[in-house]
């Protein structure tokens, strides 16, 4: 069992990580982080907002190595804006061992362990890397190969 560092934002049982997005059934807009209460684009009610799993895969849109940060994780770490293949522009942390990431690089998420829960289970969150995840399925490997 894994424990999510951010409950509600991803499916900890999925490999590679899958993000928990939302689709508005009225206007078709896809959100991540998930949208509740009502649709930002068209104002549709919560009943129209459906959970949608999103592949944690996309292209780096913007990058910043953070040098000053109070709290965890300790600086430096790298934040990226990632244009998901599934639509939304999201912000996420890049894997620590990522060397010289560039805007327009293709990235996908792997699980990283950020701690251990009281019951001994690993606390995980997705981090993005330009290297394809080791656990990807044959189908995804073929798709990633096609993109590169």
């Amino acid at each position, binding site marked *: 069992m894994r424990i999510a560092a951010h409950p509600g934002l991803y499916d900890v049982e999925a490999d590679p990580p899958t*993000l928990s997005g939302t689709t508005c059934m009225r206007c078709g807009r896809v959100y991540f982080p998930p949208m509740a209460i009502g649709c930002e684009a068209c104002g549709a009610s919560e009943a129209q907002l459906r959970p949608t799993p999103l592949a944690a895969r996309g292209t780096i849109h*913007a990058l910043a190595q953070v*040098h*000053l940060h109070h709290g965890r994780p300790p600086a430096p770490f790298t934040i990226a804006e990632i244009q998901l293949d599934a639509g939304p522009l999201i912000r996420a942390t890049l894997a620590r061992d990522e060397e010289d990431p560039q805007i327009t690089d293709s990235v996908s998420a792997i699980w990283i362990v950020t701690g251990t829960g009281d019951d001994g289970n690993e606390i995980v969150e997705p981090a993005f890397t330009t290297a394809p995840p080791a656990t990807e399925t044959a189908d995804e490997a073929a798709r990633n190969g096609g993109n590169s």
Partner: protein
Amino acid sequence: MSTLGQLRRVRVVGVGLHPYQRPSDTPYTRLGVHAIRAALADAGLEWKQIQAAYTGTATTSMGMSRLMYRHLGATGIPMTQVENASASGSSAFRQACIEVAAGLVDVAIAVGVDKPLNVTMPQRAAGLRDLADGRVVPFTHFALLASRYMHDHGTTPEQIAAVAVKNSRNGALNPNAQRRKPRTLREVLAPPHISGALTRLQCCPVGEGAAAVIVASDEAINRLGLDSDRSVTVLSSVARSEAVYDGENFDAALTRETTAQALDEASVTAADLDVVELHDAFTVEELLYIEAMGLCKPGQAAPLLQAGEFDIGGRVAVSASGGLLAMGHPIGPTGVGQIVEITTQLRGEAKERQHPRARTALAHMVGVGAVCVVHILRKE
């Protein structure tokens, strides 16, 4: 529907500041009263002639207005706090203008005052979570933006840092600025690195201070015998909030829309602007907003800044006060302080900072949330 310009004419008749400074033990009440007394003296008014007060504030306390204004003599006038993040002061000024333009009062004051006692973020209150939770503070938001701007336009970190060099030079001439030292490019680029391309001197200081602006109708100016020659007309006042922008950076899109509407309502073009005060909380923002306002083509702000076009004495003086980067960004005061600066410029009273032949000026603030407020003023 009417625009501000279609209602009764509103003119700025008095401006005052308390210098922006590092947080101190001075209570906000003393900061604010200092700026208000300066504005009253500038206008030639007494406090009892002020009929409504709007206080731009975001980080001090609820219900703070009367504890400050009472020190001028309690007259029983309406007083309201206006919170709109970094655009709080701009929004307070807008409310004062609207009340005079609508004819509800003849003389109103907008005061920006803050101390960084109670800084909060709305995402937390909304219970929103994000993969980058707590890891993206404003400087990283704008560092991300800087990386994309450099990617799109081939701009260098040195060209972005040049904004802070210019604004520090202006701030050094401003006795009310928090940072009063002119800085070289080497100094601006020196550590500490904060996030991405941004170093410490490319991030604005958030301290404390106060700014006050008094606006009046033509009738009040005549009745009270105010100096009409030193008054400055508010041509337009526009506030907008973020919409859904597909594929366009929202900071730029919101500024583009709001400025375009303000220019249109003022019946002027970007080329008519002589002085612009904008939300340069981080260096890259100045380049981005100069382009979004239509002061130059996309990707051209950095080379034109290097060529001196945005200097005092250049084509259009941008951040003549030193901007948020050098004058400082005490939040509530900032937007009101911009009106103080452009009024002073339009009156021709900015001394060493004076931009020659300044006739039309614009003030621009954005605030997290996100909102944007733009005012255009003219000396007639």
